[in-house]
């Protein structure tokens, strides 16, 4: 039983007694030595293997029993992609870069009246539909990487299995709900250049108010900075768009001009920026800053259409250009709020929980709630009951209830948006209900008689 070790040698190894010395080649000596060594340790390999496995038998087991124990996932876990809808400019980069083509975006153009008398009309894109088909998604994260306006984020949530594959297509409402679960960014490295640090005017403008309108929400900005260090190194997008390209016609132009704009706006500011305290630069990203809402309320009154995000941005951007020269000088002026952070943006250091518990719900109530909800939606009783049970278990364990899947009456993958009749696709796969099974060679009736 111990000679198993020797088998490969006796077969593959030229043995000197067989007269193969000449044919064995130049590495004969080393091979011969190897064979000799193996012969010395006759059968030891088997015992070594036994020792390895028996050690593992007595080692502490690190298995996490998932439904009962929840693993402490890393903060950057790729669970689900969240959409910050107001940041999306329908530039379609994510949809085009997606290797699986699992992102569906529909939009339409709206014409806005001119800002000033005699000005020209503006056009902007309005997002109608943003959907990610998680049945196709392979979680590569390219869409998150490629998004120039920080509209897509990774969330750690991963429990969104469905009984119906169609419900794995998360529409924008559900994708936006995931935003609540996006974690704040991790701490930057020691001595890392802070996002926004070299750009004092932007900081000043942000402190003045409207300049930060286009800036993503606090966690988002930090997330972007942490995930994309190269972006953290350069001035934030807010400054870039707030400066000369404020009236840029299209978003793609904005994006293209971003770097030069940033450079030009940052250039005059460098002397002041060095003097500016780190806290002042960091405060615009404090997680508790309520600026976006405040801005929204202030600009909503001014802008022609209150819900019009784009218009707000352009208007605030214009205003920020005007305020920029005035405020750039006294960048130390803005009061540092209590959330001001040190040179390294700190992040809650405690182990992040899977989901922030917002409220504890009575499991039974959740069960009844979901059951009724599902039955009303027309799910079959079994499916409804199963979903209700899942919700009850989650409530019992304190896992936040995932947003109820958005009901969609579209076929998946679906191109047409709401209101539009589904057009027959010119090429590619026909829709499922259009497929008629090939009847094949059908014998005429009674032909076989």
């Amino acid at each position, binding site marked *: 039983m111990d000679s198993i070790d020797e088998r490969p040698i006796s077969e593959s190894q030229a043995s000197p007694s067989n007269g193969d010395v000449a044919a064995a080649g130049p590495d004969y000596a080393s091979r011969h030595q190897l064979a000799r060594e193996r012969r010395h340790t006759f059968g030891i390999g088997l015992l070594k293997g036994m020792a390895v496995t028996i050690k593992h038998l007595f*080692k502490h087991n690190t298995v996490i029993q998932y439904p009962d124990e929840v693993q402490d996932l890393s903060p950057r876990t790729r669970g689900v992609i969240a959409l910050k809808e107001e940041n999306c400019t329908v530039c379609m980069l994510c949809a085009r870069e997606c290797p699986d083509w699992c992102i569906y975006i529909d939009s339409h153009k709206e014409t806005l009246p001119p800002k000033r008398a005699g000005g020209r009309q503006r056009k902007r894109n309005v997002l109608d539909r943003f959907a990610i088909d998680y049945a196709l998604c392979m979680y590569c994260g390219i869409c998150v990487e490629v998004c120039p306006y920080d509209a897509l984020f990774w969330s750690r949530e991963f429990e969104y299995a469905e009984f119906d594959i169609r419900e794995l297509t998360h529409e924008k409402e559900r994708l936006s709900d995931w935003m609540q679960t996006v974690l704040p960014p991790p701490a930057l490295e020691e001595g890392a250049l802070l996002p926004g640090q070299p750009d004092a005017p932007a900081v000043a403008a942000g402190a003045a108010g409207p300049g930060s309108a286009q800036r993503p929400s606090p966690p988002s900005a930090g997330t972007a900075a942490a995930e994309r260090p190269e972006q953290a190194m350069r001035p934030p997008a807010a400054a870039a768009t707030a400066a000369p390209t404020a009236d840029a016609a299209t978003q793609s132009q904005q994006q293209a001009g971003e770097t030069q704009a940033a450079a030009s706006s940052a250039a005059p500011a460098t002397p002041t920026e060095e003097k500016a305290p780190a806290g002042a630069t960091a405060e615009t990203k404090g997680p508790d800053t309520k600026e976006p809402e405040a801005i929204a309320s202030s600009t909503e009154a001014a802008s022609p259409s209150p819900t019009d995000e784009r218009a707000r941005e352009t208007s605030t951007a214009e205003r920020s250009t005007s305020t920029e020269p005035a405020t750039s000088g006294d960048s130390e002026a803005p009061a540092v709020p209590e959330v001001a952070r040190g040179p390294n943006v700190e992040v809650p250091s405690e182990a992040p929980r899977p989901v922030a518990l917002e409220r504890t719900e009575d499991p039974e109530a959740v069960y009844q709630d979901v059951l009724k909800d599902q039955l009303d939606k027309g799910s079959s009783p079994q499916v409804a009951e199963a979903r209700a049970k899942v919700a009850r278990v989650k409530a019992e364990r304190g896992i936040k209830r995932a947003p109820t899947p958005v009901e969609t009456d579209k076929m998946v993958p679906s191109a047409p948006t709401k209101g539009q009749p589904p057009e027959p696709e010119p090429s590619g796969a026909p829709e499922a209900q259009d497929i008629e099974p090939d009847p094949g060679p059908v014998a005429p009736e009674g032909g076989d008689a």
Partner: protein
Amino acid sequence: MHIDIVLTAWQMLIVKLLVILTLVPLVSLVGGYALHKELAHLQHRLGPMYPGGFHGVGQTLADGIKFILKEDIVPANADKTVFKLAPALIYVPAILLYLVIPIDKHLIVEDLDVGIFYILAIGAVAILGTLMAGWSSANKYALLGALRAAAQLIAYELPIVLTAAVVAMLAGTMSVVGIVEAQNWPFVLWPPGIGLVAFLVFVTGAMAEMTMPPFDMPVAESEIITGAFTEYTGMRFIFSFFGAEMAHLVAYGAIAATLFLGGYKPIVPWGPLEHIPGVIWFVVKVVLMFFVMIWARFTWPRLREDQLQKFAWKFLIPVSLLLILATAAWILYAPESLWTR
């Protein structure tokens, strides 16, 4: 209150058979569970944890029920009678093996005078079932597996028979109880060397005969899809494959413990150890054998088919022949004072 139950020999035999008939499936279940758990922990996993409540104790039972409830499919081109009969021919010999295993001196169904011979003969019958299963399935993988199993049985039955002959020579009897009684010191310790090597050869041959890794070429689920059992489903599969495997594993563990480790007698003839009941000694030894066989099974790499045959014919059989010579020399020339019985 004392009840006198007087049974005739026939009634006694029926009771014993009923006990065995319930014991063997139970052994299959417990053995399967132990295998799951030991394998899992050797691989740094937990194994089954949910069925049955406590650490998955109900796993094998749930598996068994699941398999029994599954559809029993017989391939259209199969030789249906033979196909259906084969699992019984595999499982029944596994049960029959237990008839001559002494759990204690008197806890044995029947102490045959030719106990070892019976074990070897019955152990070889199971291969007939495997061959029938492979041939009647009308499946090339099943046929390959069956032929490999047959070739393997022939190759590895010889070392088993020869080492069993060593034991019979040392004990001077073929009765299993007689062999245990002959081991004042277990054969694995005495005569020095001969017993140990014979024990290793016997266990290796037993592992190969059960077609368990590292000798699992006849099964080789990654290459020929569990060999002879490719076409089996449901209850026939669970009985011919897992059930028989577990029953054989425990049976061969018990046989090795009986022949070489002193069975129900203490491992060394030392005063305090003699007070421990024989049943406990037997169970401890069987569990030990089971543990070590599974430990080796899931540690070592598998042998290729040709390596497997070479290993038997070129190594194990010569070694066991030498063992017979050595045993004969020991019996003839060792001084009487070295004998322990």
